């Protein structure tokens, strides 16, 4: 059952990701990206990362992508115009892509140490309580530094927006 769900949602993720690149209209691409985010959340859930799945849904699929769609709608961006391509990228593109993937796979296999098989349900530290405990004990410094970083980003955004308004 787990493997079946994994295959279904992995397929949806890949199809949405390809669709994201292939589509010419920005709204279609944004919606495909939401599909990618949503099915990634399901994959996290299958692997036992409940909190990460929920955060993925709330933050990425919910908040960030709504802003994307909002901006696309506000600017009323139209579909992109395709320029006719040269002949050789059209025919050499796909073989080169496969060559690149094969090379990446080979290098990854050689350089990275083999990790054990991933089994569904073996990871149990994904609940909100566990993550909260980790964040405030083991990862306290990175957590706080990230919050300072976000604060700086917020202040920067306000400063930039002010310049536009004045």
């Amino acid at each position, binding site marked *: 059952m787990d493997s079946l769900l994994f295959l279904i949602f992995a397929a949806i993720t890949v199809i949405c990701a390809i669709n994201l690149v292939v589509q010419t209209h920005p709204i279609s691409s944004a919606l495909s990206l939401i599909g990618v985010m949503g099915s990634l959340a399901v994959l996290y859930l299958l692997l036992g990362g409940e909190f990460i799945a*929920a955060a993925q849904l709330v933050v990425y699929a919910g908040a960030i992508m709504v802003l994307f*769609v909002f901006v696309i709608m506000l600017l009323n961006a139209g579909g992109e115009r395709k320029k006719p391509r040269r002949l050789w990228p059209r025919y050499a593109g796909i073989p080169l892509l496969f060559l690149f993937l094969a090379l990446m796979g080979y290098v990854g296999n050689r350089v990275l140490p083999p990790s054990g098989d991933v089994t569904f349900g073996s990871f149990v530290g994904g609940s909100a309580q566990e993550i909260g405990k980790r964040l405030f004990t083991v990862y306290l410094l990175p957590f706080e530094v990230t919050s300072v970083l976000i604060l700086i980003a917020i202040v920067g955004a306000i400063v930039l927006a002010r310049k536009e308004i004045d």
Partner: protein
Amino acid sequence: MNFFIVSLIKTVIVVLVLLHVLAYLQWIERKVIAHVQLRVGPRRVGPHGLLQPLADVIKLLTKEDMLPSHVNTVFYFLAPFLAVMFAWISISVIPFGPIIKVGPVTTGMEITDLNIGVLFILGISGLGVYGVALAGWASNNKYSLMGGLRSSAQMISYELPMALAIAAPLLMLNTLSFRAMTDGQAGYYLGFIPRWTVFQGPFPQIISFILFMVAGFAETNRVPFDLPEAENELVAGFHTEYSSMKFAGFFMAEYANMITVSCVATLLFLGGWHPLWPAAYGSNFLPVVTFAISGLICFSHAANPARPFDRITLPVFGVLFLGLAALFLVPPLQLVLMPLFWFVSKVGAILFVFIWVRATLPRFRYDQLMGFAWTFMFPVALVNLLVTALAVALT
């Protein structure tokens, strides 16, 4: 396999009940608003207009399905579908009562109990924006687009105070699962004050409750926050170009969202299915008395009917009410019905407030709406969260 069958049965029950509640909520809304405005409301179709929802459904199904020529067809059809889907998914994590035993099966009265129930609801309600936003954009119409833009901006803004208002009671209950949350609100102070989070120490969550309800009104696009469909400015807002079943989809989504918000408010703040006062003081007899009195009122009106038709319809309702009262007296049924009664009455009370507000309050101006969210609700929710955290840390 047992799990699948039980889940399937529960899903079918929840969906069927929800469909009927959605249809009749609209009848109740029309009736309540009518009575607030000293009218009688729908009463032509069936006794007291009780078959009006059925007539509305037939009308919506058989109406001509218009497809405007200038729309973006794919997204135009996708939008109501998304709206309904996201509105309905969130119902699946809401428990309506305690764990019950039916024959050999022991199961909770919900479709599923997630460890991250609250986060799931927040995530899905965040996705609900896409239905409205896409509808506005795909209609290719300036009023629809304005409605869609307003709606997305409003829902993003109000999600923030809503999440902060939810976080405060969570600090006290120390869980994200709705069932565990309701269990944390069982019991009474001094034997009669319920330990609901609105009353629970160390810091009663009344402010969070009010903030949550206000944000809930905004999230469901209800009056006084119904700017996305403000008819005097935007014709009908994001659903201007929609007709027949696609329009009904948005309608259903709005009502389903209302029900979800009411259920979440009940579970988070009003103790779920735990009664207002303990069974030792006779709270188990409240439904019996209420239904029996309703039945007797029906009979007394039937004795001297205002209209000839009432001679037949009112006794039928009287018998129905008395039958309901009798059901609550059967001990094995009581275990199931009492929690349901309390849950439904709390949700019903909140839904009544939704309708009441719609009947009485005027609409906000758009800048007031955004200013209210960012300069009033957000700081208040933040301070409330901090005070709650301090109170919890000190105890």
